[in-house]
C-alpha cells in the first residue's frame, strides 16, 4: 500500500537534518499540500456547512417569508387601528409577539432536522468534534436569525410607515429607536432558546410544540394571575422592546432573566450532546 505524504503534526518540530533516520522523501511535484486549518478556519468551515444545510431546508425559506409577511400584516393592522400621529417604531415592534413563531421555528429546525432521520450520524462523521459542531451550528443559526429578524422588523416598519404616512403623504413620527434594536435582539434570543431546547430534546415536534405553547398559550394564561409569568423567558424578554412600567422590570433585568434561561437550557443541552451517544 502506497504511503501518502502527510503534513507534519502540529506542535512537533521538524526533524533535525543531522539526526539519524530515513532520508527525507522527495515530494512528487503533483502532490498537493494538505493544510490543517486554524481553529478559526475550522469553525468557519463548520459554520459554512451548517449555513448550507439550513439554506437547503424548504421549511426555512417558507418560515422566513411567512414571518416577513405576517410581520407586515400585523404591524399594518396595528397601525390602521392606532390613533393618527402614533409613533411608528413602538407600534411596529408589537408585531414581534407573533413573529417570534418564525424565529422559534428556525431555531428548532436548525437542530431538529438532524434528528428527524439519521442525518446527525453523517454530521458527526464529518465533524467529530462536538464542541466545534455545536458552536458552528449556533453561529449558523445566529447569522440566519439575524437576517430573518432584520427582515421581519423591516417589513413591519415598512407596513406601519405605509399606513401611518399614507404612502408618504404625511410625515411620520418614528419614535425612539431602541425598541427596534431590542426587538431584534429578543427575536434572535427566543430562537436561540428554541435551538437549545431542540438540542436538549433531540426532536423536531416536541420542542416546536413546547416552545410555541409556552409563548403563545401558557404565558398569556399566566398574565391574568399574579406575578408568576414575569419570570418566563418571553415576558422577561419583552421588556427589551416594550414600555417599562417604572418598577424594577427594566430592559436590562429582562435581558438578564432571558439570558439566564438560555444559559441554563444551553448548559443542559450541551451536557447531553457531549455525554450521550448520538
Amino acid at each position, binding site marked *: 500500500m502506497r504511503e501518502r505524504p502527510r503534513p507534519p503534526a502540529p506542535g512537533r518540530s521538524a526533524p533535525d537534518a543531522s539526526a539519524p533516520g530515513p532520508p527525507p522523501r522527495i515530494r512528487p511535484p503533483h502532490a498537493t499540500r494538505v493544510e490543517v486549518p486554524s481553529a478559526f478556519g475550522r469553525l468557519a468551515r463548520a459554520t459554512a456547512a451548517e449555513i448550507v444545510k439550513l439554506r437547503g431546508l424548504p*421549511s426555512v425559506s*417558507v418560515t422566513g417569508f*411567512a414571518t416577513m409577511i*405576517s410581520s407586515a400584516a*400585523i404591524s399594518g*393592522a*396595528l397601525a*390602521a*387601528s392606532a390613533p393618527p400621529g402614533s409613533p411608528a417604531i413602538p407600534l411596529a415592534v408589537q408585531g414581534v*409577539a*407573533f413573529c417570534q*413563531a418564525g424565529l*422559534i*421555528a428556525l431555531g428548532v*429546525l436548525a437542530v431538529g432536522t438532524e434528528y*428527524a*432521520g*439519521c*442525518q446527525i450520524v453523517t454530521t458527526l462523521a464529518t465533524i467529530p468534534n462536538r464542541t466545534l459542531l455545536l458552536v458552528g451550528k449556533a453561529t449558523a443559526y445566529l447569522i440566519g436569525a439575524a437576517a430573518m429578524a432584520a427582515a421581519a422588523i423591516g417589513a413591519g416598519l415598512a407596513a406601519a410607515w405605509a399606513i401611518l404616512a399614507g404612502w408618504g403623504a404625511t410625515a411620520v413620527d418614528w419614535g425612539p429607536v431602541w425598541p427596534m434594536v431590542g426587538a431584534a435582539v429578543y427575536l434572535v434570543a427566543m430562537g436561540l432558546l428554541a435551538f437549545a431546547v431542540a438540542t436538549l430534546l433531540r426532536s*423536531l*415536534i*416536541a420542542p*416546536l*410544540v413546547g416552545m*410555541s*405553547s409556552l409563548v*403563545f*398559550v*401558557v404565558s*398569556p*394564561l*399566566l398574565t*391574568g*394571575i*399574579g406575578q*408568576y409569568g414575569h419570570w418566563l423567558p418571553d415576558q422577561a424578554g419583552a421588556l427589551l422592546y416594550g414600555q417599562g412600567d417604572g418598577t424594577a422590570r427594566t430592559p436590562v433585568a429582562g435581558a438578564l432573566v432571558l439570558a439566564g434561561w438560555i444559559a441554563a437550557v444551553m448548559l443542559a443541552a450541551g451536557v447531553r450532546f457531549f455525554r450521550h451517544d448520538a
Partner: protein
Amino acid sequence: MSPAGPGGRPDQSPSRCQVSRGLAVALLRLVGAELRKIATLPSSWIAVGVAAVGSLGITLLNSSTVRGAVEKGQLDAVAYTTPAEAVFSAAPIGTVGAVVLGVVAISSEYTANSTGAGAGRQIAATLTTAPNRLAVLGAKVLATVLSVVGMAVIAVPTSLVAAYLAFGEPIASTDLADTAARSGGVAIYWTLTALMALAVTAVTRSGIVPLIVFIVNSSLVSVSFLLTRLTWLAYYLPDAAGIRLFGRDTLGLFDRALDPLTGGLVMAAWTLTLLAASAAVLTCRDA
C-alpha cells in the same frame, strides 16, 4: 360463484343490505386501525397529558389566585369569581393538545422511517391495505374525533372537580346546566380545531406549518382577535367564531363575537370546507 340455473343453487351475489353491512364493517376496521395508530404514537399521549395536566395546573393556579383575592376582599383585582370560569379560561391548553392529535394523525404517515436508502413512509403501507383514500381520510377523521372527545372527557371533569374543591363551595344547581353546556362546547371546539389541523396537514404533509399556525392562533391573544380590532368580519375566522362555545367575555376581549350556535356552525362550516379540500387533494395527488 355459480349462476342460478334450473336445479342449481340460487344466486349468491350479496344483497344491497349485505353490501352496506360489509362497508360498515370495513369502515369500523379502518377506524380501529387508525385508533391503534394514534394510540401507539408517543406524541398523542404527550398531547393528552399536556391537555389534562396543563388544564389542571392552570385551573388550580386560577382558583388559588381568585380565592386569595376574594378572601382579601380585592374583588376588582380578578376578572371572575366562579370555579367554572377558572376551568374554561384554561381551555387554550387543551386546544394545543387537540391540534397535536389532529396533526400527528396525518403527519406520522408522511414521516420517513429513515433518511437512508430504502426508507419508506407509512402512507405507502396504509394505502396498500386500504386503497380507498376517502375511506382512509374518513377513518382518520372519526379516530381523531374519538381521541379528542376522550381527551375532553378526561381533562374537563378533572379540572371542574379540582376547581370546585379549590373554591370550597357547593355546586349551585343553576350553574350546572351552563357548566355542562360549556363543557360540551369545549369538546366541540377542541374537536373542530383538531379536524381543521388534520385537514391542513393532509395538504401540507408536514406537521411543522399547521402546528405553528394553529398553536399561535389557539391563544386568546391570537391574530384573529387582533384583526377583530380592524373589522367585524374577523369574528367569522375559524378560531374566533367558536369562542363563545365555552368562553364568557370576562375581560371584554370579544364583546361582539358570534353567539354559541351561530359561531359553532360557522366553525363547523370552516372545518367541512377544509376537510373537503383535503379530500380533493388526497384523492387527486400521488401519495
